[in-house]
């Protein structure tokens, strides 16, 4: 896997495209601003949401059990999966029990995380992602670049070309309404053919056993209502205590995600229809380990709104794929190191620590502070690059010693002043790739003070 900084460098080579990507996401951020500013109580809502999640996480086991009990009472079959492979197997078993071969799926980051699609496809199952953006990237055989807007990295012309190839739309057509219409026709058939419908879960209500799924396209409903079997896949952190808590989150989710007051569809699934089956699979896959880490556990509050991506100046200019993890952007950069610090530790550095993510987050996750902490962990585990580690050790030595510091400072100033440009702007000087060095003054403040304020 290449590091975020290398991937970003490649992304940035096409500057007009970078600008387009940046502006597309900034537009979403601005829509979010407009929507949240209509609620004078927004900051109170954030605090409330954060506290509900806090209380839930402190008692997660009992809320999950309560949820399970209610769901079973409702006639739902409840399964537990400790990790991705157990989850994938569980899904396949349900499908095979019904001798099904065709599955439609609405948006679920959990299934991305567990790589469910390739697993099912290997077993001869057809899986069709029915969210428009998801379907686009499924056609392209690539992962989502954003958790809410999975195909945000693609221009409409590229989608037009793809649909021409896959769906036989007119060559050169890129009108979004026309392309969407074509996708609807195509998906309609898939919905009608499907034996099993999979969905993600936004919220699972412990007191009622209800599962709540938010979509803008109604594709979860289409799938669930047409198929004989419905399977809902949720991480253990999706449970909330009461129905009344739901209002807090549904008010925040769409506003944060896209600037809508509420998602077009908020579907509540309580029990199976007569003659049909309803399953829920509750997945851990590393989450309880995060729960056990006091400093990082509140990353489990995430409601996957994507606002931290839209606001992140680094994400907007490097694209979701540059992170190399299922969940990109700020939240992905604090979740992924839990999974594999060696592999994903570099993501903790893919940030200026500007803090905009923490400010925008509807459940008040201290994202940038966790990034800072992960950096410490990377160094503590000796995973920093040797050059970084050695230069920091040296810098610390120098800066802990006033004389050395003044000496090195002076040497640096002289070096910048007298060195020929070619020598100064060499390959090692990454600062100088796109920037001039400061013009060194003849004296430091320290020297000036000694002369001008000698008491």
């Amino acid at each position, binding site marked *: 896997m290449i590091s975020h900084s290398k991937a970003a460098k490649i992304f940035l080579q096409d500057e007009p495209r970078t600008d387009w990507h940046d502006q597309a996401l900034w537009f979403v951020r601005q829509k979010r601003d407009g929507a949240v*500013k209509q609620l004078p109580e927004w900051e109170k809502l954030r605090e409330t949401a954060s506290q509900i999640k806090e209380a839930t996480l402190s008692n997660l086991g009992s809320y999950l059990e309560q949820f399970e009990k209610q769901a079973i009472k409702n006639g739902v079959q409840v399964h537990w999966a400790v990790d991705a492979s157990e989850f994938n197997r569980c899904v396949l078993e349900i499908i095979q029990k019904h001798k099904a071969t065709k599955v439609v799926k609405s948006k679920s980051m959990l299934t991305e995380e567990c790589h469910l699609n390739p697993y099912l496809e290997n077993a001869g199952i057809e899986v069709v992602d029915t969210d428009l953006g998801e379907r686009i990237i499924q056609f392209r055989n690539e992962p989502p670049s954003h958790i809410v807007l999975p195909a945000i990295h693609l221009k409409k012309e590229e989608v037009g070309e793809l649909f021409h190839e896959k769906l036989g739309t007119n060559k050169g057509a890129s009108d979004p309404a026309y392309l969407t219409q074509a996708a609807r026709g195509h998906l309609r058939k898939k919905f009608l053919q499907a034996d099993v419908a999979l969905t993600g879960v936004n919220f699972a209500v412990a007191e009622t056993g209800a599962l709540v799924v938010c979509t803008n396209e109604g594709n979860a409903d289409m799938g669930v209502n047409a198929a004989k079997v419905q399977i809902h896949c949720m991480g253990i952190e999706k449970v909330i205590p009461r129905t009344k808590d739901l209002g807090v989150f549904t008010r925040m989710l769409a506003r944060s995600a896209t600037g809508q007051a509420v998602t077009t569809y908020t579907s509540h699934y309580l029990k199976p229809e007569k003659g049909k089956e309803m399953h829920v699979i509750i997945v851990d896959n590393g989450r309880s380990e995060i729960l056990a880490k006091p400093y990082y556990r509140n990353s489990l509050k995430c409601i996957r709104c994507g606002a931290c991506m839209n606001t992140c100046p680094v994400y907007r200019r490097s694209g979701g794929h540059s992170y190399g993890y299922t969940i990109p952007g700020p939240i992905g950069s604090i979740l992924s190191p839990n999974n594999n610090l060696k592999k994903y530790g570099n993501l903790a550095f893919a940030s*200026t620590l500007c803090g905009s993510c923490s400010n925008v987050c509807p459940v008040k996750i201290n994202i940038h502070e966790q990034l800072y902490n992960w*950096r410490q962990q990377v*160094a503590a585990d000796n995973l920093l690059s040797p050059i970084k580690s050695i230069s920091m*050790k040296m810098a610390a030595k120098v*800066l802990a010693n006033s004389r050395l510091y003044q000496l090195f400072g002076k040497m640096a100033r002289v070096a910048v002043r007298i060195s020929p440009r070619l020598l100064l702007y060499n390959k090692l000087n990454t600062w100088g790739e*796109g920037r001039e060095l400061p013009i060194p*003054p003849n004296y430091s*403040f320290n020297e000036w003070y000694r002369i001008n304020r000698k008491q």
Partner: protein
Amino acid sequence: MITFKGRIGLFIPCYIDQFYPQVGIATLELLEKLGLDVAYPFRQTCCGQPMANSGCEEDARKVYQKFVANFSSFDYVVSPSGSCVYHVRKHYNILEQTEDVKKVRQNTFELCEFLLDVLNVDDLGIHFPHKVGIHQSCHGLRGLKLGTGSELVFEKQSKVHKLLSKAKGLEIINLDREDECCGFGGTFSVFQPDISVKMGKDRIADHQKNGAEYITATDTSCLMHLEGIIRRNNKPLKTIHIAEILNTWKP
């Protein structure tokens, strides 16, 4: 006019000391003109942030201790750098919290907040006949809460705007993106230079498009980065630390 009593230790961060002494001088002169008792401890170096932001806060521990030793005898520590002040307040938590450490963490102030919150000075009566774009440095804005981040739904306030809004002749320009990060990010600027520079270019373009002659900020680090890009690309903009604008004050 000012009834403030107390000894102030002037903290001049390492890169200002070495590369932008004029910012330190402006800060010192301004505090002196206000009639304050200011001293600059010679043996100071750095707050330790460059190491800590790179993950090496353990290496920085000695630098932290040195900072505390240099400044614990003062009633207040004042610095023209929001980022360093934020670091002292927020991240010196790894030190044993002795009386000295606690005192230094509580009493270290960024210049603008010191003027407004401690001295209650908001109108110096300065004259600066230029169009100025304000770059809200992130650690000052979101860390020290020198202003309300654009993400938040709180009543808008901005200490930098407050200090500059009464200046004669000074026109604060409006930006398309009022508080986007400039991309400096400490060692981010050298380990992720491509994004860092791109972010800086975009910030500069925003200021230029909206007619700024000067970009000002509470942090010389952001300005050093922006200035480097401005000079590389021959942009018709200048950078100036807010202390330098405030120090044009003639009492």
